[in-house]
């Protein structure tokens, strides 16, 4: 169960993304907020796996998560999820297909999760469910766009600057080896760039 304070935080988070029209929408949003379940996640635990079958919608209350994409035998960080943000497998939740990604907690975390069945019910009822779906698609599109900005920087230093703009605590979230993979630069180049900007 979520505490009243957590429900409020979640409700406020949903409100900041969804444009409500009329009392009906407001009531539906309140009802939906109450269907979220609180989960405590330990550092290193997953929020969803490659073999997860149902796509739950998560709202991060505390802690940070990384979503990894499997490429061959290796996994690379695709994006980060921080407090106040939605986290979900777009494959599972939006496209009802097998997930190509998994999400792992980088620190101890607290998450409010909406089980897939409630999300699908809201979607079937139209109205708020459809709005929520649109919001999630738009958020996802925007995140990819922002991450692409980082990756289009040709110098390691600019990539780090662009990444830090999105995630100011990035340097403390993941080991340097993973950071180099995330930024698409060699470890040597990462250390040179960090030195250049006075972080090493």
């Amino acid at each position, binding site marked *: 169960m979520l505490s009243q304070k957590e429900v409020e935080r979640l409700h406020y988070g949903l409100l900041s993304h969804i444009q409500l029209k009329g009392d009906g929408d407001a009531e539906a949003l309140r009802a939906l907020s109450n269907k979220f379940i609180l989960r405590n996640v330990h550092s290193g635990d997953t929020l969803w796996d490659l073999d997860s079958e149902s796509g739950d919608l998560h709202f991060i209350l505390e802690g940070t998560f990384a979503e990894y994409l499997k490429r061959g035998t290796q996994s690379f960080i695709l994006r980060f999820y921080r407090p106040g943000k939605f986290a979900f497998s*777009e494959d599972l939740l939006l*496209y009802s297909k097998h997930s190509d990604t998994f999400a792992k907690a980088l620190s101890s975390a607290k998450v409010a999760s909406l089980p897939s069945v409630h999300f699908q019910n809201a979607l079937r009822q139209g109205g708020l469910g459809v709005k929520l779906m649109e919001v999630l698609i738009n958020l996802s*599109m*925007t995140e*990819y*766009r922002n991450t692409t900005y980082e*990756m289009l920087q040709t110098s390691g230093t600019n990539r780090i600057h662009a990444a830090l703009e999105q995630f100011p605590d990035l340097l403390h979230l993941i080991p340097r080896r993973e950071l180099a993979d*995330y930024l698409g630069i060699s470890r040597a180049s990462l250390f040179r760039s960090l030195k250049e900007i006075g972080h090493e």
Partner: protein
Amino acid sequence: MNSGEKAAMRTYFESLPVYSAYFDEAIDAVIAAMDSGIRAEKGRVLVELGATNKDFWFLKDGFLKEMYRSPYAKEDTLFNMIPPSSIFVNEDTLFANQRPQHYFTAYTSVEILRLKEEDYMRLLQQYPVVINLLYLSGTAEIQKSRRARLNMLRMNKTPDRIEWVRQQRRELYHIMDRITLAQYIGVSRASLYRAFEKNIKYQF
């Protein structure tokens, strides 16, 4: 729209994974609501996608450059190359009601078709399930493509990135000049030229 334009739109919808014959009535209605082709010569900025434009656009023929202002570059920078048979929109305007941060330039001469926002809203009322599914499926394709490109942009060797474009974005590889290719794969021109010098198979 003429028969060629209608056929191009129908081919696009039928290529979406979600497509089935059940969608045909709604697809016919979408096609009937679309504007005839707008042509733009190479180099022209598509001013049709102005600051408040929330229409849906379909690139029937030609290639578009999607440009943005990078805080780290002196000039506007390439964000993406859009190949024929693609949907594109003002994302900032449509998703966040903000001024667009991107604009589109014809890389070759192009022909584009438009579904106006008001027509989209009307069709959404008329066929809510089908239009939502088409929207979702179209978006899913764009997402997949962005995710794959991000994966490429994280490869830390320039030749690997070039190879990815050669294999996965063949039509772009053949149309892009070297400066555009360097921007598309996020490397400096010098780095691209070094990779080309080392490997003869990348030659255009």
